[in-house]
């Protein structure tokens, strides 16, 4: 089964989603991420979805869940690189991802988090 790699950069974690998301992959990612945050004491999580061109309500919920998990573990989540088509779809689905921070690209996302750290 595919596993999404979680990279540690300074006190941030970078999750770059490059594959089509299956339910199992997402659950594994949630578990891995929670463990990694605790193990590294990371203060922020950057989720890069530049490569994601199809989303559904499931994906939207996954982003919200990951953000919630991180918040409980005292790490802030930034979703970066959302494509216009993806953003429009999420809005049409009525998912505005309240409480999740967003940035245009990884660089800006990391700057946003380190400004708060």
């Amino acid at each position, binding site marked *: 089964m595919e596993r999404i790699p979680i990279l540690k950069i300074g006190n941030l974690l970078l999750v770059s989603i490059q594959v089509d998301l299956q339910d199992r992959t997402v659950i594994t990612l949630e578990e891995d991420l929670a463990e990694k945050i605790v193990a590294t004491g990371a203060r922020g999580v950057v989720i890069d979805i530049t490569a994601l061109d199809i989303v559904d309500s499931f994906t939207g919920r996954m982003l919200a869940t990951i953000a919630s998990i991180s918040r409980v573990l005292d790490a802030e989540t930034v979703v970066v690189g959302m494509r216009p088509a993806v*953003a429009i779809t999420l809005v049409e689905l009525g998912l505005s991802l309240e409480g999740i921070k*967003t940035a*245009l690209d990884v660089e800006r996302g990391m700057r946003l988090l380190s400004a708060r750290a």
Partner: protein
Amino acid sequence: MAAEVFGNVVERCRAEEEELLGRWKEIVAESLRGRMTGVELDKELRDLLDALLSALAAGGGTDPGAEAYGEVRALLGELSRNRAHQGFSPRETAVAVFALKRALRDRIGDEPGFTPLTDLIDELGLITFEVYTRAREEVISNQAEQLLELATPVVKLWHGVVALPLVGTLDSARAQVVMEKLLQTLVDTGSEHAIIDITGVPAVDTQVAQHLLKTVVAARLMGADCIISGIRPQIAQTIVALGIEFGDIATKSTLADALMLAISRSGVDFGAEMAKRGL
């Protein structure tokens, strides 16, 4: 069969083709009032008559949708489209075809096959109408498309600040195009601030507001910040009367104010900057 219906109309027409064509041209030329040259008209009508007679001789029958009339229909379509582009009315185009009936009556009105032939010509005349309408519709839909593209420029105002000056009524189709274009520009230019200026939007109803809100939320999802500017007093009143909530979306009355806000949000100290320049 076709031969029985039309009798020996075809033979007589062929025999008198030149005279028939001359009379037809005469009648059509009257209605054209010199908007086409005689040579053009001659070629058009000659081709058409020739194709029609060939189709009749080939046993095309009374149905103009039959295979034998393929060439006649194609010629009629071309004629109709040309006339439409030259600015003729559909009536004038159809009259050109119906004129053939008058020409035929003058030459071979006594033939028993004359009546079914005129019925056929009526049908052919109607084809020109259909093609004419279709050609017009094509022109209209092309124009609508061009209008969509024309009316939605996204301009860069400052480093990291883009503006979308909206002009004209915002319907769903246009709002969609506008939204996609703005979001794509945000990605392409890496801008973190977008200003949607609605100075040129004549009226804001719940639907337009809905589209604006969706655009702002989508931009936020992508990590950009949207400001709505150019809200005229009447529009502000309408928005309140309709109970539309813009929530925490920044709204400004002029584009200048919105630009100032966007720039100061990107970290420039405007007060200090203005004081330095003595403004």
